[in-house]
């Protein structure tokens, strides 16, 4: 395959997968069939686009190919009268030229609210959204959740079965149900953003398109739910993180930590948009975890120089976050903030307390943060051990290279 076609298929996969699957589910009501046909459409694209060139609107091409495939499959399987009616129904719906539909976000929104239905277990909701909407492989999702691939495959299959058997509707919930359905959707979008922001798999540390997709979906949500401050808080949080993307990796693709980033390369427009969104959300007087996290990100994003960062304020915000959503990762971040605000010894005491609980065993950022504090305390040998421990646990090449550089810099 020539590189441009390969790149076009890759891009189409990332940009169009969710829409193709979401549309196919609406037409067929069959989640497995929708996924299979989407996969077939992408396989067909690889062969056809190499021969005929990349179509002007890859998304419409793929949706049409997937639809045709679905009609074929349903026709072949149509043995009973019910199945025949189903096929007829699909053909009828398809006759309205739906293959040329513009890129309406509603199918994806319908998909995400269905994936996030509270009758499904939380783990299943997130996994299902990442699989069907974002097109992540079972392996990637399993790694993100620290579970085995087979267990994840089973979880996905069970969730799809429950949607079918229990009659979970495929729709955006009516207005009166939205407030209780939103938190699960936000959690899923944030995970999706993080998957793009710091990919758990592969050599690429950052997959901007996934993060961009999460932002795009969050924008739709904020438009749909303008009175929900946590939706705006989440969008603000994403924008404030995403604003730093250009400065986060150097030319070699290596990680640049916050204090070393060229702040001139931060996206000032996005920072301004994020801060304005956050201010508007906070004015509603209903703070939540996303608004607090956005406030922390805003402390970083609005500091002209690293030494201008308001670390005591960040430590306070992390303490507040820990009360809202108790988590060892939040405690780790609070320890780092305390170390910056009140000296490395204060931070190290918190981290060592956290380490003894064993709650973050296997998480590379714990020894990495510990190593930095030990270095600042001049305990070089212990710092070196901690950097080596962190490098052994890191999951991406860029993180491993970063930790190796820190280790080398100890001298």
């Amino acid at each position, binding site marked *: 395959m020539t590189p441009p076609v390969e790149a076009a298929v890759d891009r189409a996969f990332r940009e169009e997968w969710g829409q193709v699957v979401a549309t196919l589910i609406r037409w067929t009501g069959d989640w497995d069939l929708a996924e299979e046909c989407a996969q077939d459409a992408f396989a067909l694209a690889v062969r056809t686009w190499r021969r005929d060139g990349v179509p002007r609107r890859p998304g419409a091409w793929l949706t049409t190919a997937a639809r045709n495939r679905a009609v074929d499959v349903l026709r072949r399987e149509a043995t009973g009268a019910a199945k025949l009616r189903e096929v007829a129904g699909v053909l009828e719906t398809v006759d309205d030229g739906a293959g040329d539909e513009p890129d309406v976000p509603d199918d994806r929104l319908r998909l995400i609210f269905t994936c996030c*239905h509270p*009758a499904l277990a939380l783990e299943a909701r997130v996994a299902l959204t990442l699989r069907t909407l974002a097109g992540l492989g079972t392996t990637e999702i399993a790694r993100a959740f620290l579970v085995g691939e087979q267990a994840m495959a089973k979880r996905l299959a069970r969730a799809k079965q429950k949607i079918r*058997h*229990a*009659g*979970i*509707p495929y729709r955006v*919930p009516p207005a009166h*149900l939205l407030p209780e359905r939103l938190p699960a959707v936000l959690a899923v979008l944030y995970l999706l953003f993080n998957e793009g922001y710091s990919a758990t798999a592969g050599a690429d540390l950052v997959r901007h398109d996934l993060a961009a997709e999460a932002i795009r979906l969050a924008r739709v949500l904020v438009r749909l739910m303008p009175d929900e401050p946590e939706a705006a808080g989440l969008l603000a949080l994403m924008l404030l993180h995403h604003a730093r993307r250009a400065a986060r990796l150097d030319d070699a693709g290596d990680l640049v930590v916050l204090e070393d980033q060229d702040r001139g390369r931060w996206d000032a427009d996005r920072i301004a948009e994020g801060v304005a969104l956050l201010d508007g959300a906070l004015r509603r007087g209903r703070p939540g975890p996303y608004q607090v996290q956005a406030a922390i990100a805003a402390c970083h994003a609005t500091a002209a120089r690293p030494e201008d960062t308001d670390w005591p304020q960040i430590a306070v915000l992390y303490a507040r976050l820990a009360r809202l959503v108790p988590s060892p990762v939040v405690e780790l971040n609070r320890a780092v903030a305390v170390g910056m605000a009140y000296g490395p010894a204060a931070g190290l005491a918190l981290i060592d307390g956290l380490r003894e609980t064993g709650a973050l065993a296997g998480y590379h950022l714990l020894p990495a943060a510990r190593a930095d504090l030990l270095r600042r305390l001049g305990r070089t040998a212990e710092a070196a051990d901690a950097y080596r421990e962190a490098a052994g646990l890191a999951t991406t090449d860029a993180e491993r290279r970063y930790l190796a550089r820190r280790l080398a810099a100890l001298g």
Partner: protein
Amino acid sequence: MKYVLLICGDESAAEHANDGCDGWSEEMAERGVLRGGAGLRPPSDATTLRVREGEVLLSDGPFAETKEQLGGFCLIECADLDEAIEIAAAHPAAAYGTIEIRPLIEL
């Protein structure tokens, strides 16, 4: 979609046994979603049966001794799970007991 609402409660739910459904049944019948159902006598009146190797084995009491026991059931027919949830949430027993929504196998 057809669902059975299994209405469960612990011992304290027994005091509600003769409460009736506070107009819920009438409202749901009027709406056309209620297909049937009944309240049940307590587990102490239950008899449990198995047939093993042709022999009928009986025991006194419910099939499982758990804290929560089945106190009644309703068969409903409605559009989807969201409507079933809304119907179940309106049942007075939801406020003191637990309601399990089970879809029926439909062929």
